[in-house]
């Protein structure tokens, strides 16, 4: 089986800083993979490289076996790569319903339709509404996005990413700013995606990481330090000193 | 050859003196003050009036022009501009165009629609030879003034806390205030300096560029080109841009007079395509 997403010796430099240092990582179909590491380790940078927001200095990225290293971001998205951002990237002036409807329409390549009114695309709107319901945004789907409380905006961020029905979903600290009790729900919803979807999660909340991920990679100073199952990583002494700290398991 | 280069530099420097105030208000304060030229015009007219009606020396007029425009700037800033900092760029455009219109009409009313003429003191007239190249004295003077302004601004912005406090206030005024920066004073001072520089530029430029009520509109494009090509995050950017554009314009007109203004626009577009965020920019790719 070819991995759904695979990087080969990926390197990214910002001037003198090597933010991503020779990273080779594989995600299989249905993976539940977490990427952890100290602040500034290069996790977000790595995701930016995967999605095409940044261009790597060297190395290759393959999506379903196809080399996409030089492809622009929107093409990779169209191939089924979807993500959330560490800092919300939403449409402040649109409503959540419009936002998600837009994502659904684009997925079906209706985005270039210049004549039929959006309101005429009933199926897509209904699908968007049901996604919003699932994310408890049903009662605010007609608000202006910028008026939503931060927590709700966080949820919308994930809802948009999911509306694209991705094959690979990259989540950059999705739970940041979400209240404790809702954090697990978010990941439950992510878990509820079709089993074939591969998920890569960045998160500093170790409870979440340990309950969600099957495998964990640890990134330190741009390079992969360890990769393994949850237990292996949790008990790795190097990970404990570099990242978790001593009282990690209380 | 060298004369053309020198003229180009002088012309560029004149553009810089005129535009550097805008580089401050638009570039650093992020306020699209299209009325910049109106402040320049104020300085120019003040010089004309002081010289022609009161016989004040040209050299004395320069600081007066600065102060006069700075004063108008600070008054307008306190009464009108400050309400518009957090409005959209379009509102700022509409507002400042409105101001230009009013300024044009008012000057027309008080001073008439005709060209005003500044008569330079004799020591600034004529030419001298430097290393065998004949150079215009007045142009040399402009280069000198420009260097002075450049150094002053660069020092104030890069080596004092004022510069970073200003940029902080522009980046996020709300948080800047919350962290103790008196945003309104910082803005008022900056705006006054920007307007004052415009006034100084107007006084210096009147002789070469001419001065009539349409001045703010006629030269708006040049100011904007300089600031855009230079980039809005520094003073060095507009400085370099002024030099390039000045030399390109003068050389273009000398060697290919038939092309007219083509050269400066083509160079502008070329530079912007090469560096969309300006010559000196801190912004990365989108």
């Amino acid at each position: 089986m070819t991995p759904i997403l695979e990087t080969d010796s990926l390197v990214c430099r910002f001037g003198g800083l090597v933010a991503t240092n020779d990273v080779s990582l594989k995600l299989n179909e249905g993976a539940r993979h977490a990427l952890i590491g100290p602040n500034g380790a290069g996790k977000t940078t790595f995701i930016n490289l995967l999605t095409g927001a940044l261009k790597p200095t060297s190395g290759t990225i393959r999506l379903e076996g196809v080399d996409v290293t030089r492809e622009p971001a929107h093409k990779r998205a169209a191939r089924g790569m979807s993500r959330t951002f560490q800092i919300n990237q939403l449409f402040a002036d649109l409503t959540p319903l419009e936002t998600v409807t837009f994502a659904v329409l684009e997925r079906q390549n209706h985005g270039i339709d210049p004549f039929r009114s959006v309101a005429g695309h009933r199926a897509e709107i209904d699908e968007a509404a049901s996604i919003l319901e699932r994310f408890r945004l049903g009662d605010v789907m007609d608000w202006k996005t910028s008026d939503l409380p931060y927590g709700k905006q966080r949820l919308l961020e994930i809802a948009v990413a999911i509306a694209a029905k991705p094959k690979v979903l990259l989540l950059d600290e999705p739970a940041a700013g979400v209240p404790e009790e809702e954090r697990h729900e978010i990941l439950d919803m992510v878990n509820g995606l079709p089993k074939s979807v591969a998920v890569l999660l960045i998160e500093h909340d170790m409870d979440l990481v340990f309950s969600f991920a099957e495998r964990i990679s640890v990134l330190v100073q741009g390079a992969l330090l360890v990769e393994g199952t949850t237990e292996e990583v949790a008990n790795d002494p190097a990970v404990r000193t570099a990242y978790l700290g001593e009282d990690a398991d209380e | 050859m060298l004369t053309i280069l020198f003229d180009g530099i002088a012309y560029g420097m004149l553009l810089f003196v005129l535009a550097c105030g805008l580089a401050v208000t638009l570039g650093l304060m992020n306020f699209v003050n299209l009325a910049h030229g109106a402040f320049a015009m104020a300085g120019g007219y003040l010089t004309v009036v002081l010289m022609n009606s009161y016989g004040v020396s040209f050299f004395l007029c320069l600081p007066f022009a600065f102060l006069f425009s700075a004063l108008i700037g600070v008054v307008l800033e306190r009464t009108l501009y400050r309400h518009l900092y957090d409005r959209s760029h379009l509102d700022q455009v509409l507002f400042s165009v409105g101001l230009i219109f009013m300024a044009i009409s008012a000057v027309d009313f008080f001073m008439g629609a005709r060209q005003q003429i500044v008569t330079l003191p004799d020591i600034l007239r004529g030419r001298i030879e430097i290393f065998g190249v004949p150079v215009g004295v007045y142009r040399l003077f402009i280069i000198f003034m420009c260097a002075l302004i450049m150094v002053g601004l660069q020092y104030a912005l890069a080596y004092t806390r004022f510069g970073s406090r200003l940029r902080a206030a522009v980046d996020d005024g709300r948080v800047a205030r919350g962290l103790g920066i008196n945003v309104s004073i910082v803005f008022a001072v900056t705006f006054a300096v920007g307007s004052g520089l415009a006034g100084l530029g107007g006084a210096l430029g009147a002789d070469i560029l001419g001065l009539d009520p349409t001045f703010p509109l006629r030269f708006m494009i040049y100011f904007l080109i300089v600031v855009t090509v230079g980039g809005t995050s520094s003073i060095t950017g507009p400085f370099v841009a002024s030099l390039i554009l000045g030399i390109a314009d003068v050389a273009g007109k000398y060697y290919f007079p038939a092309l007219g203004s083509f050269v400066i626009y083509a160079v502008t577009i070329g530079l912007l395509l090469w560096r969309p965020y300006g010559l000196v920019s801190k912004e990365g790719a989108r």
Partner: protein
Amino acid sequence: MSELLRVEELVAGYGPAVVLTGVSFKLEEGESLALLGRNGTGKTTLINSLVGVTTYKSGRIVFDGKDIARTPVESRAALGLGWVPQERNIFRSLSVEENLTATARPGTWTLERVYELFPRLAERKTNMGNQLSGGEQQMLAVARALMLNPRLLLLDEPLEGLAPIIVDELMGVLHRVVSEEGLSAIIVEQKARKILNETDKAIILDRGSVIHESASRDLLADDAMLSSHLGVAQGAARPGA
């Protein structure tokens, strides 16, 4: 110990919208307070109102014996408020070091000291504000507030996005400065249990007013309270309702 901050019936919001409907609480000098509550209950609004960047309607904010409710925003930092905004709001066109020095006030916290606390920042000191990782921005926001040498630190979810090891370190530092240097702090945090161990007092906000106030220790022991006001519940409160 003397009283540093007393908030009385504070009503505030954004423009015409009222978010805080009457908040009252007290804080002694050298004390730390955990500010808890669900999403959208007004924690940030309370912090922002103390800083002065919301629309003040009525009530009193007595800081060090003086009512500052109408004091201009920019003067409050000089009085001793140090603010870490929820969204960090790093000045993007300033370098890391300029971010620290632009607003700094003289005192015991100096560049050396904050760099010692966050070595990561020292390594990145020439980066622009927008060229930092999320966690680095968070560190910078805290460091920036410390450079104000405040008497009261207002920390709005300061631990968000920090690696566990940094969280521990930061909490340790906060603990030390509060207990040893007499600084006070108000800390907003989503994870109640994590913060209650480290603070002296706690208040819980709901719909813009204080519904619980006690010693942190007591709240930590009060499972019923924790789960009914902070635990799992259906649907977030709508604003201003």
